[in-house]
């Protein structure tokens, strides 16, 4: 599904922030991407999402080499990936419902065709009563769940979540993890970037990708 080989990244003329990164993400797999703050977890996720270009190395996504893709192809691949951003990135002028429905709307689908699905997903993540509300009114946990719902609505083959429990209390963090685990069981490959050791201990079956000093260490 995702394959990195000797990928390196530097910003400008600075030192490499990621060096010789090689790993694969298999379909239906579950992995934590961890490491200290500033280790490059978000940067690595952005490389997977093709919003950054590596300075060297080889990236293959869904069987296609990233360096050969044009913009439309990148867009098509992104539609197969769900992303939960650390800072949620909800659009403040749209309601929770509209934010969650956004990935379907940008595909040009008719609103009536996905309405019930979005409403059902909002219920699933516990935002059934908050679908009319604008994001500034939502609590941190609610924003987090709305961001997760937006990532899930396209039924992604791969879910990338950047510190999805960074803004919530431990109880809600456990619930959110459970949500990701249930999603994984339905066949979605999940990558959760986190430095929350407690969270990782709750799901022993997950692979751990540990970033440190620019290098990636894999613990299966």
């Amino acid at each position, binding site marked *: 599904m995702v394959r990195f080989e000797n990928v390196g990244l530097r910003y400008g003329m600075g030192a490499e922030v990621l060096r010789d990164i090689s790993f694969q993400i298999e379909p239906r797999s579950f992995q934590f991407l961890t490491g200290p703050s500033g280790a490059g977890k978000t940067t690595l996720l952005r490389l997977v999402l093709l919003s950054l270009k590596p300075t060297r190395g080889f990236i293959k996504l869904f069987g296609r080499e990233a360096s050969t893709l044009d913009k439309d192809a990148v867009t098509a691949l*992104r539609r197969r990936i769900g992303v939960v951003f650390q800072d949620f990135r909800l659009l403040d002028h749209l309601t929770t419902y509209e934010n969650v429905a956004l990935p379907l709307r*940008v595909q040009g689908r008719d*609103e009536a065709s996905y309405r019930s699905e979005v409403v059902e997903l909002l219920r699933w993540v516990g935002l059934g009563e908050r679908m009319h509300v604008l994001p500034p009114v939502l609590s941190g946990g609610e924003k987090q769940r709305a961001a997760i719902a937006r990532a899930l609505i396209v039924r992604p083959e791969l879910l990338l979540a950047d510190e999805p429990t960074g803004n919530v209390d431990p109880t809600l963090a456990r619930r959110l993890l459970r949500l990701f685990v249930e999603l994984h069981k339905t066949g979605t490959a999940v990558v959760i970037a986190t430095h929350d050791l407690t969270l990782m201990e709750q799901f022993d079956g997950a692979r751990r990708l540990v970033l440190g000093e620019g290098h990636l260490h894999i613990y299966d």
Partner: protein
Amino acid sequence: MTSSRWSQLRSRLPGSTSGEIGGEKFAEPLKRNMPLIPADTIAGRALVTVIAIMTFLAAISAGAGVLVNDASRGWMDLVSREMTIQVKPRAGRDIEADVAAAANVARATTGVSSVRVFSKGDSEKLLEPWLGTGLDLGELPIPRLIVFERDANRAVDISALRDELLRKSPSASLDDHTLWMERLASMARTLVFIVIVIFLLVLTAMGLAVAFATRGAMAGTSEIVNVLHFVGAEDSFIAAQFKQHFLRLGLRGGAIGGGAAMLVFGLSATLAAWRAHTPAGDQIEALFGTFSLGLLGYAVIGAIAVGIAVLTGLVSRSIVFRHLRGLS
């Protein structure tokens, strides 16, 4: 994954039965398909203001051009309809006989609809504004004037008329106001040219202002563009959203600016009508006409407002596409 699967998953999640997750009420109707680019932002309001001002200035300059053009046509029509025969006193000739002969020539000419002969008294009165009243001008060799109007539907053969006058009244000369008309036409052309230049300058300034305002608005919406990219929006989709957004702003600004310009011309026409038949009003009307634009003028202003809105949409679309290409 279908919606029923979401339901199945939901039942397996903690809190799903406690009411903390779930327990929905859907009394409120869903807001759907709201514009993806927020309409009421500071940058948006600034752009509407810029467009409104520019539309107003463009419409005023275009309206002024229409007025000047109409007024100059009126002047030329008026001047070209009249011609003057001047009979100068000459030693050894009876001026009254020459005047009568010249008037007869004018009356007999095809295309002349009316002839008015200025008597000696009338001619002396014409000099009063310069020489004052109470003077005996009887001893002065004052030329005599014959003014005649041309028939609008029939042409006057000026050359034949000149020859006939020379033959029957040698001291008479014909002034067909060609010099005046040339000057008037030249002045009107200059005025219309100036107005067109001002109009084009205003349009250029508006294009630049819209471009800068669009860039400013884009900078304020970069987060929205990023999110749209990450959720799988194509550039054409994003550009279409921005085009709609800026077209709406352009239409709003154009309507405000064009409406204000129409109001100004409407009020000017009303004021001119109120002041008609007063000395000042007559003077203004003689120079600028009735200030009435007519349907064509208002249609031009309406077209300018719509054109500016479309221009705004096109300029912004091009800028948005360039911006999106830069992001890749």
